């Protein structure tokens, strides 16, 4: 039968099921097809904190949301247009997020008394009319899948397992996604298990055909490719972009990379990924704890490698004493914190921005470090290169602040031309750097570059540069132990001045103020970039002028930030914390920042921010 085709500019689909149902894989595949098709897209996975909560229960629900469009989009979307629910729990956990009139595709197979109860339903939602605002498609995905793959002689369990591919096939049909990539993927993925391979491919095709043939689905949707700058693209998550950025940093500095890390959600994947790239001269060391992880990285830096450590909030707390040593030693070091919900163990799998002040101040004494934050998944690549530039140029530890949303979210990434990436020169000291009055050639480990205030990086193995350094206060220039009061005051100020001096190398803040007539500035940092941008867009679309700027450098701030803030009547700073950046801005610039703060473990929604911005704009412009 021929089907009606409807044009859409954007669609938000959420796949939801039990942890065991392979929803992350399904979402990833749909995303890959969508990317290949050429839409712009943004994704948001959401998994339970438990390894595997009991099947069919709410805590066991895992979901993956993908937002794709024929224009450039900034977020995974607020309210899904389509929900694929593989069991009652998946339905119950997600239905309240849907927009009115949304489409729901449910696998009815598990809607048994028992499973409804496990999900906390007293009545069957498919029957009690509670879903009447939605377009519900009841399909026994499981049985159809089992039927479709019976020829391959799998156990019933394995056969049923392929239902996620059936669902993927159906959705691929609905939105005219290309199918080859997925077929190829399944071929390689299950190369070693032919039966599984064929079953999954068959299920996938069966799902497609089901859409094609059944009456139930009368409409297909078309979302045209989005116009994008020319170039080669790939879809990438924040953690992957971070890992690749670290590999690239080794390449651009010409240094071996040493990662010292202790596993912790949501940072572990960076360790996993980097452990695969040994041939790039990347060594990964799974340490006994976070302290050993940063300690080993610092030792590697002392030896002339690019020392890196990756962790999340609780781990960062443990690294603080050693980070302070790094500040004293003035050695390059990358400390990457993939922020999660806190305090303490908090919400390990949820996102948050509440480690900014810890990164700034979490050490004893005056121990300043530069802080850099990426704004989107793909931006993790560029941001970590910037962090590396600062660390190497200024001989200092740098804290890189990503978060769970960036880490696991994905977006299309336009691949950089390697030739466009600026090399970073470690400029090791190779000989004496001073001639004494008596004409003797000397090496002075704390004699600084007058411009950057950086000290020489003299690595073991360099004849004549033997020297000893440590965590006790050091005499200016010589680096010898010094208890002299004036010297201490000087060194404390010099370490601060060195970090402040980084600002000289930071470009002016980019302010997006289309007509230059906005009186309200929305300023953010980190992963709020997408939601803020989307919110700003909506309000602008209503004809209200709004300026937007986003900070990559949290310490030091760009030199012109103060002037920028002065230019606007009101400055709104949305943060997924209780106002940490706002506090730093208020203290430094004495500007009465308006904070909008939510600490829900979830990214902001565009609509929510649009309301806040609109509200503020009304005050200002009325």
């Amino acid at each position, binding site marked *: 039968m021929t089907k009606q085709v409807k044009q859409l500019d954007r669609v938000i689909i959420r796949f939801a099921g039990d942890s065991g149902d392979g929803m992350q894989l399904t979402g990833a595949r749909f995303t*890959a097809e969508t*990317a*290949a098709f*050429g839409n712009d897209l943004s994704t948001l996975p959401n998994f339970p904190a438990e390894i595997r909560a009991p099947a069919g229960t709410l805590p066991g629900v895992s979901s993956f949301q993908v937002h794709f469009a024929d224009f450039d989009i900034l977020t995974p979307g607020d309210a899904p247009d389509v929900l694929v629910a593989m069991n009652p729990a998946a339905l119950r956990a997600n239905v309240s997020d849907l927009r009115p009139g949304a489409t729901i595709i449910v696998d009815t197979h598990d809607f048994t008394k028992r499973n409804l109860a496990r999900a906390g339903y007293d009545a069957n939602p498919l029957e009690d009319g509670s879903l009447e605002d939605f377009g519900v498609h009841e399909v026994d995905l499981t049985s159809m899948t089992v039927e479709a793959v019976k020829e391959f002689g799998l156990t019933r369990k394995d056969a049923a397992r392929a239902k996620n591919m059936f669902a993927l096939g159906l959705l691929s049909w609905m939105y005219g996604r290309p199918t080859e990539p997925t077929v190829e993927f399944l071929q390689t993925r299950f190369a070693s298990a032919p039966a599984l391979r064929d079953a999954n491919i068959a299920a996938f095709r069966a799902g497609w055909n089901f859409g094609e043939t059944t009456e139930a689905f009368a409409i297909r949707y078309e979302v045209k490719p989005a116009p994008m*700058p*020319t*170039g*080669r*693209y*790939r*879809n990438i998550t924040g953690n992957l972009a971070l890992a*690749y950025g670290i*590999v*690239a940093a080794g*390449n651009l500095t010409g240094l071996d990379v*040493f990662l*010292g890390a202790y596993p912790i959600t949501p940072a572990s994947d960076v360790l996993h990924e980097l452990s695969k*790239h*040994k*041939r*790039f*001269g990347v*060594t990964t*060391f799974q*340490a*006994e704890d976070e*302290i*050993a992880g940063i*300690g*080993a*990285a*610092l*030792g*590697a*830096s*002392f*030896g*002339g490698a690019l*020392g890196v450590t990756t962790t999340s909030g609780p781990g960062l707390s443990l690294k603080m*004493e*050693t980070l302070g*040593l790094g500040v004293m*030693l003035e050695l390059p070091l990358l400390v990457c914190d993939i922020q999660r919900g806190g305090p303490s163990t908090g919400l390990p799998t949820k996102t948050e921005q509440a480690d900014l002040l810890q990164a700034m101040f979490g050490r004893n004494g005056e121990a300043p470090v530069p802080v850099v934050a990426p704004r989107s998944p793909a931006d993790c690549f560029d941001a970590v290169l910037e962090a590396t530039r600062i660390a190497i140029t200024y001989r200092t530890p740098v804290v890189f602040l990503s978060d769970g949303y960036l880490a696991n979210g994905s977006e299309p990434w336009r*691949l*950089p031309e*390697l030739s466009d990436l600026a090399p970073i020169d470690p400029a090791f000291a190779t000989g004496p750097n001073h001639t004494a009055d008596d004409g003797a050639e000397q090496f002075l480990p704390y004699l600084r570059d007058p411009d950057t205030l950086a000290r020489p990086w003299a690595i*073991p*193995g*360099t*004849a*004549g*540069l*033997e020297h*000893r*350094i*440590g*965590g*006790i206060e050091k005499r200016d220039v010589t680096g*010898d*132990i010094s208890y002299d009061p004036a010297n201490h005051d000087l060194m404390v100020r010099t370490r601060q001045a060195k970090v402040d001096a980084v600002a000289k190398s930071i470009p002016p803040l980019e302010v997006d103020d289309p007509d230059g007539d906005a009186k309200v500035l929305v300023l953010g940092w980190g992963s709020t970039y997408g939601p803020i941008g989307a919110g700003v867009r909506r309000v602008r679309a209503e004809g209200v002028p709004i300026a937007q700027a986003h900070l990559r450098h949290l310490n030091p701030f760009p030199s012109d930030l103060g002037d920028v803030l002065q230019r606007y009547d009101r400055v709104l700073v949305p943060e997924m914390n209780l106002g940490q950046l706002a506090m730093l801005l208020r203290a430094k610039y004495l500007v009465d920042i308006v904070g909008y703060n939510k600490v829900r473990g979830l990214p902001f929604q565009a609509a929510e921010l649009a309301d806040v911005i609109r509200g503020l704009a009304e005050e200002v412009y009325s």
Partner: protein
Amino acid sequence: MTTSLPDPTLRQDGLHGVPAADGPADRKAYKSDQEVRWCPGCGDYAILAAVQGFMPDLGLRRENIVFVSGIGCAARFPYYLDTFGLHSIHGRAPAIATGLAVTRPDLSVWVVTGDGDALSIGGNHLIHALRRNLNITILLFNNRIYGLTKGQYSPTSEIGKVTKSTPMGSIDNPFDPVSLALGAEATFVARTIDSDRKHLTGVLKAAAAHRGASLVEIYQNCPIFNDDAFVAFKDRDTAESALIPLEHGEPVRFGSEGEYAVIREPSSGTFFAVEAADVDESQIHVHDAHLRDPSAAFGLSKLTDHGQMHRAPIGIFRQVEHPTYDDQAREQITEARAKQGDPDLEALLSGKDSWVVA
């Protein structure tokens, strides 16, 4: 008890890969310009002298030697040697040395630590460095007290020790660093004492020659806060009957005329010190430091008494070959390159699912 080291360019030992010095150096070359600041009579002076003394014999380039320490009196050590040095933070030296050793096969990496630094705050890093068999040499200066912080008891202090923090006496069992190291799978475990320069030098050279983690416990006197800790070993009359020297392949005898010996009681398997005269030569335990099974070495460590010491075995308890963490980490990189070919960053970044927008 002295080990002579082969030409570093040839050898396959702990110093393999570390460039050899062009010519002979003398101990003065290893003295830094820093004034040594320990209390008069501190055992650390003797250890420093011994190390400065044999460093030239290693025949290495000075710039390829690194001493990493934590915090404590002992940890000041690196300042006094004209090599590269890192005086880090309390307890973390083994962790810091790990990153250095793994990334720099051309360096001879030494860790200097105290009983508090190594066994109290740093205990975890120590046992993991040993377990991994990292190619580093760890000198544990055991004065059985916290010196730098002015005399609190340490994890090696005897039970009942009265200190500033234990006016009624300490109530913790002390660790035996040798037993602990053996329990942590250490491949080279030895003990020596500050007052015996020859033994100290011999053990330290053997430790340097071992490829893998070498733990050397050094009994070190702290005249200021724990002066009587090792009296029995210092006092001429008692020393020889108090220290039990372990020599690989030799029957374990001690005493000025070897009048004492060590036997293993067959049923329990426990080692005892006895009058040599009371036992048959054949019963005397012959020390084998190269046994894979660390049990005998562990048993011997239990001859150490942990009260006011009057008896302890010294020498090399265990010395066995085992692949090192750092060698293997580097081999994996070589292997990866061999298998997967030269790195291609561009290919890595674009991955399998990239597409082109024209």
